[in-house]
């Protein structure tokens, strides 16, 4: 049984000005120990998707329909108390900005102790503190700093504390939302290596959410490319790198600068992401797509798959031709 199974998930934000379909018809799965990358621009819905897995979509967001199954159990049906026992223990979420993710008036040690004693109430405070110190040491933070406050740490250290909190209870799944955006390049690598190391040791599955496709390609087994709330492409990272099907994915890959090419022209995808309150009719990408056809402006393409391993949402790829996918145009 897969560890995580998302089926036709729809998440809306219902504001007075209108409804935004932040996540539309998302379906994918994740097995134990696998890494999945959610790639997309800001506003593509990747964070919303991540948060809906732990049912913490912020107001006025609502999970409109679909299923989220963790080890077979649809968590959307669970009462809040059971959901609370899953969060932090079975599934952990590391937030984007380490500067604002810790309680400013609470000592670091207290964060850990509170976490441990919430999920394992029979643990003594002393034991919990001991465990916290061990974790901090393994993350490269001196144990004496256990009684310091968050503002006494740098951004990189705070990010490590966040990671520490995430892995304390040995979760099956860890989600990291833009784990590197708020940090400088060198620290970025360290953090990602750290995550990878921990993952191997504890056997956790990892969902990496990022706008940086290069990081995702490097570190993930599977990749989902999100655009305006829809999954545009879903494949293993090897496959995606070898043969990106969706024009958007191709655009993203081409825009990654390659340090080894001395005269590379930087390419970018023209235009900008759509206004989610009134997205374009038809395929949401057509205004920016170099291959846009007539039907793209009118109808929305469905997500179709080739042998259940490479999925794409684009009219360039036709279901009618049977199990194979034919291309309508040279590309």
């Amino acid at each position, binding site marked *: 049984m897969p560890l995580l199974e998302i089926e036709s998930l729809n998440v809306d934000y219902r504001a007075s000005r209108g409804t935004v379909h932040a996540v539309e018809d998302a379906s994918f799965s994740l097995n134990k120990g696998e890494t999945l990358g959610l790639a997309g621009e800001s506003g593509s819905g990747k964070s919303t998707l991540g948060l809906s897995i732990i049912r913490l979509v912020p107001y006025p967001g609502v999970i409109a329909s679909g299923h989220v199954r963790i080890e077979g159990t649809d968590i959307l049906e669970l009462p809040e108390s059971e959901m609370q026992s899953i969060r*932090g223990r079975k599934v*952990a979420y590391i*937030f984007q900005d380490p500067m604002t*993710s810790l309680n400013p008036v609470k000592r670091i040690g207290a964060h850990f102790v*509170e976490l441990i004693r919430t999920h394992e109430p029979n643990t003594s405070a002393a034991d919990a503190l001991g465990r916290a110190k061990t974790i901090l040491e393994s993350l490269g933070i001196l144990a004496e700093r256990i009684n310091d406050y968050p503002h006494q740490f740098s951004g990189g250290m705070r990010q490590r504390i966040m990671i520490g909190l995430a892995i304390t209870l040995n979760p099956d799944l860890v989600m990291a939302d833009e784990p590197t955006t708020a940090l400088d390049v060198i620290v970025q690598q360290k953090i990602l290596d750290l995550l990878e190391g921990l993952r191997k040791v504890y056997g956790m599955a990892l969902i990496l959410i990022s706008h940086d496709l290069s990081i995702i390609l490097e570190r993930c087994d599977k990749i989902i490319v999100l655009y305006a709330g829809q999954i545009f492409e879903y494949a293993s990272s090897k496959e995606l790198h070898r043969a990106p099907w969706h024009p958007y994915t191709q655009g993203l890959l081409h825009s990654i600068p390659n340090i080894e090419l001395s005269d590379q022209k930087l390419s970018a995808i023209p235009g900008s992401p759509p206004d989610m309150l009134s997205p374009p009719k038809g395929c949401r990408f057509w205004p920016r797509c170099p291959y846009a056809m007539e039907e793209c402006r009118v109808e929305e393409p469905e997500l179709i798959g080739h042998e259940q391993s490479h999925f794409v949402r684009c009219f360039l790829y036709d279901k009618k031709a049977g199990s194979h996918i034919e291309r309508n145009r040279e590309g």
Partner: protein
Amino acid sequence: MGLRTYVITRILLTIPTLLLLLSMVFLIMRVLPGDPVALHFEKKAEPAQMDAMRRILGLDKPLWVQYTDYLLGLVDVNYFVSHGYPNFGKSMQTFEEVGGQIFSAFPATLELALYSMVIASVIGILLGVASSKSYNSIPDHLIRGFGTIAYAIPVFFLGIIFQLIFGVYLGWLPTGLRINPRVEPPATITGLYTIDSLLEGNLYKFLESFKALLLPSLTLGIILSGIFIRLTRSNMLETLRLDFVTAARARGLKEGTVTYGYALRNAFLPVLTMMGLQFAMLLGGAILTESTFSWPGLGSYIVQRINFRDYTAIQGAVIMFGLFVTVVSLVVDVLYAYFDPRIRL
């Protein structure tokens, strides 16, 4: 900087503020029109009599002499030791020691202020938190409505209504005085009847003084809670959207822990500051409340003395109020530093 250093620094800073306050009060009293001398005489009196009175009242001396005399009087330690209160001068009407009058009237106001503050804070914070948690729902709107209307009611109006309903029609609670006139007040230790009764071990006296305290402090407390509700609500709304709150939930912490340990603990700080500032407002309201309930505190004292243009008395009382407010704001600042470790550094 540790907490101790901060406290000491803060205390030292209050001295110039107090001095400034004193000077301003003194100046205002002397500068404004209105002559206390004239009030001693029913009709227009002989200039000689007026001058004599002026000399007795000490008003013939030049302004700066009066000022220094007054200041020296206040810090006169011997006087303080022998009388038990600082030298606020003599009343211009009765020639009694103003200090004594002020010190006997003050505890009543203190007691009223304390209880009102507690009521206002409890109501304000609880309702404010509840309101913020159910954002944009009917309970939210109702609570906000209550908060807005509460503050718009004149203190004495609410006081009179309470007296009518609970005192007259229902007859449950007394409508004036600090304690049932047939009961002997408790021995003075703190001057607060409720505390003193408890210290004495006398439950009956405690109940009687508590009953007398209930209506006035409810009046003041409910009106003040209006502001606290709105402030707590808006601070909570802002704080609840912050990352660390969602992050706490993401770790599976119980909602109660998140609301109080994470959101309120952080949202509380500006509310605390506001509470300190509102204390000044509270004292103003206390004056009106005291008048309404015939509560023998400093507020009633000022009101009485006003009719006699009793400079020294009004001055002394105003300074006492100022001192009170300064002490409260000091306590608030220290509490703030205690709750927010970032301030101390």
